[in-house]
């Protein structure tokens, strides 16, 4: 069992100098669900967005450290960011479907990559919708606007959209925060299937979700990595007092 | 495939960035040309003569621009006195008082007024407004500063209404609800809470509207009588005047390239440019500063 991502001593800063993350070092195991949890402002989302260089769009800069994915430092300026983003997909907290049809949402990334063959595109659409467990619900209306779907369905379309590009790593930033329990369940079930093939990094929107899904867990508090352990161990016998206080609800 | 994409995108991005700066280039260009053709006037006409009170360029080379300045001033002030109350009032009505369905009718209508060509307004001014004022106010002629002011007011109102209405609309609902919760009537809320909150936007609208009035050419040329007399008293409102803009438009066709008259007309253009520059820079800095203040308060 190998680490797909290795984070070495990463520190992040905002443009005004305040620190977002301090000296983070951890590994993310391949083909497993790693959960980054902790109270708000801990730096979890920021870390997530570093992994596919989405932070390039914001005012956050890495002041030191490396992020190695398959041995290559993705923070290196020479990195092919476009290829990186196809390899490392992300699902956001609010479902954001593009103002186009369901089918077009799914083929968007592939068309950007230059894929024009209709057969390949149709295959990708069907494959990714099945992986996201939503094929049965939408296969009759692929050419309708994606905005017509419910929130839970839209979020699974966002997941399918990422899967269509056949990534190796999937990042999820509180993906079920706006969803009802049934939709949440469907998303979590999909993740448990997907982890057999993909490396998954999840920021959960509740401790309970973390407990349900984590193979590995990392507790972040105010920019610091406080503890890292296997999922079962973390949530039953945490080693640090701060972790235990947070898990048992003494602060949050 | 990726490489070609990058090359094409690089060129497109460069072109877009260059286009962004085009506005600055044009302003500089305009300023430069006005200087180039207008500054010689300062060399050819002594300053005292330039700011004298007789504008008779054809006979006797009298280039006193004061009558033109006062002409523009009196027409603009008159326009402002009409446009400000009506403009703000209409904006308040559309934003705070009118029912939804009426708002959908009124906004396009006011926008329509903003699109009416000034020459059409001037045309109606000559045929309808001027004779009306002549009979109604018992004047020797209907082509007066007042006629111009009324029409200019009509031209400035749409600008004031659209900017002020946007500003009023942008005032957070919470402000109004807070006032109502304290027992204020809707009327009191508008005047004591909403309007002051939108103060900077409304002011900007007023300044932009007045800026439009100062710069109007065709309407004033057609209805203000074109008599370059010094307009200093209230009575001047009811007699013919001449604005700077009308002077340029009327006389430019008859001057020979490079003559003193030609240079003086460009000089007047330069003065107009500087006036509008001052008005607009002030208006935008008021807006910028207010935006910063609003961001601080609301955050």
């Amino acid at each position, binding site marked *: 069992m190998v680490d797909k991502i290795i984070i070495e001593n990463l520190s992040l800063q905002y443009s005004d100098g305040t620190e977002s993350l301090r000296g983070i070092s951890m590994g993310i195991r391949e083909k497993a669900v790693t959960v980054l949890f902790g109270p708000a402002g801990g730096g979890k989302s920021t870390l997530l967005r570093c992994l596919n260089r989405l932070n390039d769009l914001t005012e956050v800069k890495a002041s030191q450290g490396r992020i190695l994915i398959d041995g290559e430092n993705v923070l290196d300026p020479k990195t092919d960011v476009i290829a990186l983003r196809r390899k490392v997909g992300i699902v956001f907290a609010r479902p954001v479907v593009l103002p186009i049809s369901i089918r077009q949402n799914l083929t968007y990334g592939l068309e950007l990559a230059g894929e024009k063959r209709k057969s390949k595109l149709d295959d990708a659409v069907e494959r990714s919708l099945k992986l996201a467990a939503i094929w049965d619900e939408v296969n009759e209306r692929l050419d309708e606007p994606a905005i017509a779907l419910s929130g839970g369905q839209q979020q699974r379309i966002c997941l399918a959209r990422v899967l269509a590009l056949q990534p190796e790593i999937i990042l999820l930033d509180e993906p079920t925060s706006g969803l009802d329990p049934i939709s949440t369940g469907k998303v979590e079930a999909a993740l448990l299937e997907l982890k057999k093939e993909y490396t998954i990094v999840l920021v959960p929107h509740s401790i309970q979700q973390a407990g349900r899904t984590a193979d590995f867990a990392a507790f972040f508090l105010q920019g610091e990595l406080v503890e890292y352990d296997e999922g079962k161990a973390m949530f039953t016998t945490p080693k640090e007092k701060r972790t235990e206080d947070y898990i048992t609800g003494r602060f949050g | 495939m990726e490489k070609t994409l990058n090359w094409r995108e690089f060129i497109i991005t460069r072109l877009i960035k260059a286009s962004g700066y085009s*506005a600055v280039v044009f302003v500089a260009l305009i300023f430069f040309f006005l200087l180039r053709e207008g500054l010689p006037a300062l060399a050819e006409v002594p300053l005292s003569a330039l700011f004298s009170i007789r504008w008779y360029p054809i006979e006797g080379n009298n280039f006193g621009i004061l009558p033109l300045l006062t002409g523009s001033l009196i027409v603009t002030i008159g326009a402002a006195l009409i446009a400000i109350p009506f403009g703000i009032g209409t904006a308040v009505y559309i934003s705070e008082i009118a029912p939804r369905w009426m708002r959908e009718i009124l906004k396009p209508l006011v926008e329509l007024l903003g699109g009416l060509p000034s020459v059409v307004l001037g045309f109606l001014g000559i045929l309808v407004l001027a004779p009306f004022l002549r009979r109604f106010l018992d004047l020797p002629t209907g082509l007066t500063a007042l006629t111009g002011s009324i029409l200019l007011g009509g031209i400035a109102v749409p600008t004031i209404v659209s900017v002020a209405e946007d500003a009023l609309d942008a005032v957070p609902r919470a402000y109004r609800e807070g006032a109502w919760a304290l027992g204020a009537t809707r009327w009191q809320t508008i005047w004591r809470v909403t309007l002051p909150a939108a103060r900077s936007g409304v002011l900007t609208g007023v300044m932009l509207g007045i800026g439009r009035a100062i710069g109007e050419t065709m309407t004033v040329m057609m209805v203000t009588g074109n008599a370059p007399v010094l307009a200093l008293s209230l009575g001047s409102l009811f007699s013919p005047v001449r604005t700077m803009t009308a002077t340029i438009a009327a006389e430019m066709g008859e001057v020979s390239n490079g003559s003193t008259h030609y240079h003086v007309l460009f000089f007047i253009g330069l003065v107009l440019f500087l006036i509008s520059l001052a008005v607009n820079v002030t208006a935008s800095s008021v807006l910028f500063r207010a935006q910063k203040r609003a961001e601080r308060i609301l955050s």
Partner: protein
Amino acid sequence: MKRIFSLDRHLTERIGFSLITLMAFLTVVPIVATVIYILSKGGSAISWNFLTGFPSDGMRAGGILPAIVGTFYLTLGTAIFSVPLGIAAAIYLSEYASDNRWTRLIRIAIINLAGIPSVVYGLFGLGLFVLFLKIGTSILAASLTLSIMTLPVIISTAEESLRSVPQAFRTVSISLGATRWQTIRRIVLKEALPGILTGVILGLERAAGETAPILFTGAAFFLPRLPGSPFDATMALPYHLFVISTQVPDMPIQIQYGTALVLLAFVLTMNLIATFIRSRARARRQW
């Protein structure tokens, strides 16, 4: 005591509202009246001959075709120069520019361009295009002048339209491997297009009705033929109306109102098209 107090406030409100409502109607009614008035007075002059024939008898009879064609050419010329440049500048401001000193300079420049009197544009056009660049009094010189005048309107409305597209779309697009320009072309520009189009039409509508900028740069009063090249001068509706209503003795009133009506119809049609595009886009919006 309390009852008198509250009565007073409500009375003030009633009076105040009535006053404001009156003001609004006094502003709006003349607009409608103007349009109806011109329609009624000028309607009788409109005929096939009027719209497609040439003027005769020193403009006092015949048609106004050259003026109509001229206005059409000028509007087209203005569009050719101002639309691509204006939209590109708007894309820069909305998608690329950061919030620094230079960007503020650009914005101040745009506000200034918007406020420059139309006759000063005429002077500038005369100085630069007609004389310095030796293009002469022509459709080209007039179009270039009108373009610079129309630029700020197009830039402002286009930028506003681009900004209204939700930022989330851009983030999602980039996260799927798009470059910034691909995101703009495929998503942002596509969604902002109706708003941009509305702004373009409103800007061109204003250009079509302007007289002062074309006075010394391209307008002519009497031309025996239609313009054959961009380097020819041309007749134009606003200029034509101006001259026939102020400088031609014994000008039949009919023709004056008819010309005003044609110009008004031109402008109003553009306005209606713009409004139609705007409301249809709002209804079909997927966000």
